């Protein structure tokens, strides 16, 4: 069984760092459906290291992100990583502005037929272009600005806006009244 002292330290670190680490993993993962597994692997690794040596607070973040990078790389086979360099039509970074969705959409204005946001989140997670659930997670869950999302995902802001607003339109059509 886990020793009480290490568990208490682990709990403290887990609570302190969970959200930042999760945000980092969401940004870096290839598929958002893997986030739970990767997070568990990261903190299990942290637990193993905690039992071997003292970890101080000042370099905790870089320490965890080092583990995160390693676990993310290990999680995906080379084939999956090659596939993630997408040439498919869903990855439309750089499409001309005139083809962009003209108007921004507010999520709170969507009129959804059934109040089934669990299904809506599952729908988003299944998107071929995994930037879509990432953007939704960062924008609505983590309250990150669109400009910062663009910087974190290393894309341009018009791409982020396009994906977000186009998908919101799509959600209205698919799940909305009359859809």
């Amino acid at each position, binding site marked *: 069984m*886990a020793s009480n002292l290490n568990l208490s330290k682990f709990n403290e670190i887990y609570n302190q760092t969970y959200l930042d680490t999760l945000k980092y993993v969401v940004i870096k993962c290839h598929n958002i459906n893997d986030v*739970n597994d990767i997070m568990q692997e990261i903190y299990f690794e942290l637990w193993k290291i905690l039992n071997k040596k003292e970890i*101080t607070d000042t370099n905790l973040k870089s*320490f965890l992100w080092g*583990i995160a*990078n390693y676990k993310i*790389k290990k999680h995906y086979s080379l084939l999956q990583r090659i596939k993630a360099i997408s040439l498919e039509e869903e990855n439309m970074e750089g499409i001309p502005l005139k083809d962009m969705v003209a108007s921004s959409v507010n999520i709170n204005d*969507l009129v959804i037929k059934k109040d089934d*946001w669990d299904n809506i*989140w599952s729908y988003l997670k299944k998107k071929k272009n995994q930037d879509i659930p990432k953007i939704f997670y960062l924008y609505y869950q983590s309250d990150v600005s669109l400009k910062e999302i663009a910087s974190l995902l290393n894309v341009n802001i018009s791409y982020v806006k396009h994906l977000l607003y186009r998908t919101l339109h799509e959600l209205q059509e698919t799940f909305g009244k009359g859809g």
Partner: protein
Amino acid sequence: MTNKGKLKQSIEKDINKIENYNQIIEKINKPAFNWKYVLVPVCLILIVSLFILNSNKSAKNSLNYNMATKLDGEIIINEIASSTASEMEGLTSNEKLEEQEIIEPFSMNNVYIPEDLKTKKTYVVYNNDNKISYYVINYSNNNRYLNITYSKEKYSKYSSMEKNGESSFINDTEVKIFASNNKFITISSYKDYNYVIETLNLEQDELLMFLRSYFI
């Protein structure tokens, strides 16, 4: 509740902090793997591997390389004699070291450096023609250090060692890690630079954490 609130709720239900925590605790409390059922076959494999490797070895060279020991899954640590490690230390006769401010190739902000290595110094090494051979970033305390040596050219002093070492991969970057007693020497090329990373009295975990956070 707003639609945004409902979406947040669904996300939190799916990527759930408490559920993840429970899964981690379950893994932590899982009974330890019973080694006795794999120890005998593992020993047999090791003995056979030793035999095959030794029988393939050519005549001893002056650097006295020993068998590489595969540890930690993908990471290979090449054991070298302490005499070899000592030979690699210090400057050659046509090098001189000056403490100077240097422009580091990458930001060290998110790089893991052991907390106790508080003293940071940077150096430039010049050759006899007063041309820059390489740069050194040194983190140290009394009896532990981490040296990051880098240049655009490969450091010829290590070329024989590098040729004979087995590779590991850190975040897709090929590295060769050598160990002797309390020292590690890591040789790699990364984003146009050639690196030799030397440590004294650092644990393997600390070295690997540094490498994983540097070679991203």
